[in-house]
């Protein structure tokens, strides 16, 4: 009886057991199949509903394919100039936010990764405190307000610059770079900044990419920042716009019990199309995310 060792560290396949074992497999796979279907079918339903005509939405009665295929929801969404503005805000806050966050964290992490850094013990203690304590919602709000960041695009970027958790991950990564590389660069006359920028950054791409991807998903999905600090509609990202549509259609459907079906289904269709548009970028980078999140989890599991 042989054991096939998988290179990716997954448990080796145990070849053919007895009847018990086959019963176990059958039950196990059936349950997992049900679980998978319970995730896929609702998501699929949202996708096809977004391509349904308003009338068919109002009648309902379909699960896998709309009774009447139509692009009217998407046409309605794109006719609204607001969606383009929101899309622009979402994209720019994600791109600017991610690049500044990754650079800022890497810079601090590089400094802190040197054991001989003066004051390091104090800095690390401060960092650990920020991981466990925070002022909470109201004091943070008052701070943002006194900094003049309310209703400013920079509220998406500046408070999100730094995360000690990400610093720890990068610090551990930098420590694993062999010292000889740095020493030889220093002998050639390079200073710390030079070593950091042209040696460590290129070498640390996998770790930087992991952090960038997760931070990017966070930025894209973030809605609380807008809800708390932004009232200017021209600064709304997609998530906030979607939230407004949801609240609006909820109120309508409650006021409308027994009333006009037309208005309700239009907002419903718009809501569905906006959901799909908002989720599409996440789906597009999902394969990349999948490649990086296992390594990301492992990096994070290493304790300082």
């Amino acid at each position, binding site marked *: 009886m042989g054991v096939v060792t998988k290179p990716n560290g997954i448990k080796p396949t145990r070849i053919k057991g007895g009847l018990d074992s086959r019963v176990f497999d059958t039950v196990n796979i059936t349950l997992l199949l049900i679980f998978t279907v319970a995730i896929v079918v609702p998501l699929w339903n949202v996708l096809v509903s977004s391509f349904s005509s308003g009338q068919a939405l109002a009648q309902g009665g379909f699960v896998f394919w709309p009774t009447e295929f139509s692009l009217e929801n998407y046409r309605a969404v794109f006719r609204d100039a607001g969606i383009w503005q929101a899309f622009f805000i979402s994209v720019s806050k994600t791109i600017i936010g991610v690049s500044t966050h990754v650079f800022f964290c890497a810079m601090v992490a590089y400094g802190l990764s040197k054991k001989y850094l003066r004051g390091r013990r104090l800095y690390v203690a401060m960092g650990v405190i920020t991981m466990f304590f925070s002022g909470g919602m109201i004091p943070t709000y*008052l701070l943002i307000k006194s900094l003049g960041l309310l209703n400013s695009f920079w509220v998406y970027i500046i408070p999100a610059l730094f995360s000690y958790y990400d610093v720890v991950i990068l610090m551990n990564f930098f420590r694993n770079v062999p010292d000889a590389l740095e020493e030889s660069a220093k002998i050639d006359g390079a200073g710390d900044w030079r070593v950091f920028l042209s040696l460590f950054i290129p070498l640390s791409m996998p770790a930087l990419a992991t952090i960038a991807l997760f931070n990017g998903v966070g930025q894209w999905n973030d809605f609380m920042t807008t809800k708390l600090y932004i009232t200017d509609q021209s600064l709304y990202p997609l998530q906030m716009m979607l939230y407004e549509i*949801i609240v609006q259609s909820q109120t309508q459907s409650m006021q409308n019990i027994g009333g006009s079906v037309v208005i309700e289904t239009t907002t419903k269709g718009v809501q569905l199309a906006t959901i799909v548009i908002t989720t599409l970028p996440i789906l597009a980078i999902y394969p990349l995310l999948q490649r990086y999140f296992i390594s990301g*989890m492992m990096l994070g599991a290493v304790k300082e």
Partner: protein
Amino acid sequence: MAKSAWTSPGRSSETKPSIGRRVKQFAVDYVRQWELQTMVIPGILFMIVFCFVPIYGLTIAFKSYTVIDTLDSAPWVGLENFRIILSDRYFWDSVVNTLAISFLKLAIGFVLPIVLAIMIYEVRFNRFKKLVQTVSYLPHFLSWIVLGGMMITWFSTTGLFNQLLLDLGLISNAQNILLDANKYWWIATLSDIWKESGWGTILYLAIMAKIDPTYYEAAKIDGAGRLRQIWNITLPNMKMIISLNLILTISGLLGSNLDQTLVLMNSQNREKAEVINSYVYRMGLAQGDFSYATAVGLGVSIVSVILLLTANKVTSKMNDNQSVL
């Protein structure tokens, strides 16, 4: 940390110099490594401004802060705000809702990822294993706003949920359960589980991948079935990580998901949906009672720290006096 870890190389073997010498040495080293210091200083400034200033701002919980005040001009009122909390019915309603949802999430949402991870681990067809993992991690990356919008579609009277129940003959007429306050706790719990339990398996799977396969071989030779192997090999190997997760979950019992609450709460289900976080949000930002809302937030964090320490004590007893944290 050993002293040598943060003095510059080559100097660590010196005997302890006087304070004046040490300050001078510090200054010399500091200037010599100014490039490194310029990298760290922005981070330190960030932490002071965005983390420590708000922590100082917590003092408004003991003050009577109004919109025209600055942090320092507001008059001290001692524990007045906390006294009001004790008799605030709406606050205690939100505590009940928070605890109910948290305990449901703990009872179901804590066990399910463990079971699921073991089930995935036991799959022998790698293609199918990959498929299950790919699908089950996906909902984690959807925002609560997106998921909330989806749920409103699924649960509407013409939506997927009612359609399926009607087709199966389980109900006779469609009903929107999002408008039913009595079902809210379950909706909040189950939707959270749907979203996060697949993602929750990742850490468990990573730990399981490190279990020495010869254990299973030996167990099989001794005639142990698959369930026996899971019970006697897989689970004991995950004891540490399960305890760690349990501690973190327990310390988060009073925490709640503000995004989820804001998107799923409506005028019909508010009484069962209002949680501590959303109450702080409503009192503080919607009604402008900053001091009171801060007091609520502070009180809750203190209780959370106590919960964390207690949970750590209890689980370390279970793990032969080894602390997991």
